[in-house]
C-alpha cells in the first residue's frame, strides 16, 4: 500500500475513532480502526511492513492524543508484526483466516499495550483488562474484518500489478 494512501486512511480512521465511533460502542467498547488497518496490511504485506506501518500509525495516534507518545506506536507495531508473521505462514485469500488473524493480532497488541501501561505505573486489573477491554476490542475488530478485508486485498493486488 502506498504510504500516502496509508497516511490518508490512517487520518480518516483516527478522526472516526475519536468522534463517530462512540455511537456504535457496545458497553463502552469501540473497535480500534487504526489497529484493524495495521493488522490487515501487515497480514498481506509481511512482518517488516506490518511493524513499520504499525509504528507509523501508532505514532500518529499518539501525537493526536499528545501524551504517552509511543504507547500506541509500540503496541500497534507488535500487532502489525504478529499479523505479518501469520501472513507468511497462512493462506491469505481467505476472509475467515484474516478474521482469525485480526482477532489474535489485535489481542496481542492489546496485551503489549497493557504491559506498557504497567511500565507507566497505570494499574488496571488484569481480568478487567482482558475481559472488558482486550477481548471485546479484538472481537469487534474481527467482526469488522469481512467488511474491509476484500477492499484492502484488491487494492494491494492492483498496486502490485502496476509496479
Amino acid at each position: 500500500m502506498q504510504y500516502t494512501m496509508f497516511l490518508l486512511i490512517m487520518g480518516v480512521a483516527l478522526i472516526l475513532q475519536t468522534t463517530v465511533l462512540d455511537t456504535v460502542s457496545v458497553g463502552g467498547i469501540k473497535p480500534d480502526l487504526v489497529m484493524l488497518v495495521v493488522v490487515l496490511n501487515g497480514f498481506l504485506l509481511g512482518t517488516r511492513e506490518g511493524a513499520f506501518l504499525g509504528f507509523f500509525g501508532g505514532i500518529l495516534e499518539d501525537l493526536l492524543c499528545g501524551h504517552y507518545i509511543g504507547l500506541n506506536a509500540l503496541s500497534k507495531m507488535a500487532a502489525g508484526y504478529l499479523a505479518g508473521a501469520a501472513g507468511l505462514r497462512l493462506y491469505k485469500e481467505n476472509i475467515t483466516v484474516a478474521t482469525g488473524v485480526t482477532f489474535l493480532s489485535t489481542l496481542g497488541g492489546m496485551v503489549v499495550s497493557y504491559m506498557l501501561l504497567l511500565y507507566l505505573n497505570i494499574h488496571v486489573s488484569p481480568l478487567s483488562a482482558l475481559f472488558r477491554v482486550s477481548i471485546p476490542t479484538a472481537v469487534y475488530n474481527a467482526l469488522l474484518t469481512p467488511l474491509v478485508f476484500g477492499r484492502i486485498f484488491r487494492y494491494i493486488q492492483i498496486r502490485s500489478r502496476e509496479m
Partner: protein
Amino acid sequence: MRWVTAKRIFFFAVLIAVTLWAMRTTVPEKARMAPLEYKFRDALSPVQSGLTWVGKKVSYWISFPVSMVGAAERNRALEEEMAQLKSQVIQLTEYKLENQRLSELLGYKQVMSQDYNLLAASVVSRDSVSWFGTVTLNRGSRDGVKENMTVLNPEGLVGRVVTASFTTCEVLLLTDPRSGVGCLIQETRIPGIVEGTMGSSGMAKMIHIPNNIPVEKDQVVVTSGLGSIFPKGIPVGTIVSTKNESSGLFVSADIRLYADLSKLEEVLIVTSVNPAALTGPGGES
C-alpha cells in the same frame, strides 16, 4: 551473527529504548503541551466537532423509528409522571425556601447555584483507545479554562481539566485509571478515594474506606473537598458493592457514577468557586 542482522537488532533496540523514554517524558501530569500539539489539536477540533455532530444525527435517525414503537404508551406514562413531578416541584420549592431560611440561620452558604461560576461546553472528541477515559471539549484558554478546573453535568461529577489549548481542553474522566478524587459517603461522612478503573466502564472504585463503620449498598458518595482540587459536595455516584481490602483495615466499594460518561455531550466547567462556598459553618474551611 551476520553484520546486517546485528545492525537491525541494534536499530530495533534503539528504537524501543527511545520510544519507552518518550513515553515516560510525555506523561500528562509532567508534560506541558508543545506548541505544535496545541496547533494540531486546535486545527483538528472543527473537523472532529462536525463529525461528532453528524454521528449524533445519524444515530438519532437510525434509532428514531425504533423509539416510535410504544410511543403513545410512553407518552401517557410521561404525562402522568409530569403531573406527579409538578406537585413534587411545588413541595420541593417549599423545602428549598425552608432550607434557605435554616441555612441562613446556621450560617451555611452552600447552595449549588450560588457557589460556582459555570461555563457550558460540548464534547468534541474522545480518547481513541478504550484504556483511558478522556474527552476533548470545545472550550480553551481563550474562554478562561485552566488546568485542574472541575467538570460536571447536571447528574454529577465528570472529571477535571488536564490540559487547555487556545480553543479546546482535555478532560480526565472519573473512570480513567489515572483519576483519583477525595470523596466521602454522604450519610456517614466516611472518607475515601474514588479511583477510575477503566476508561470504557461506567464504574469507579472507592478505596481506603475505614472498616469501623458499615458501608451499605445505595449510599451516596460526594466529593469531600479535603485536600482536593474538586469543590465540596458534588454528587459522584452510589455504592453498588463492597469488598475487604487486603490490608484488613479498609474496605473498597464499586461505585455506579451518576454521570453517564459514555454518552457525554454537554458538560459544565467550574471556572471559579465563590469564596463563600469554600467556607464551612462558622467560617471553617
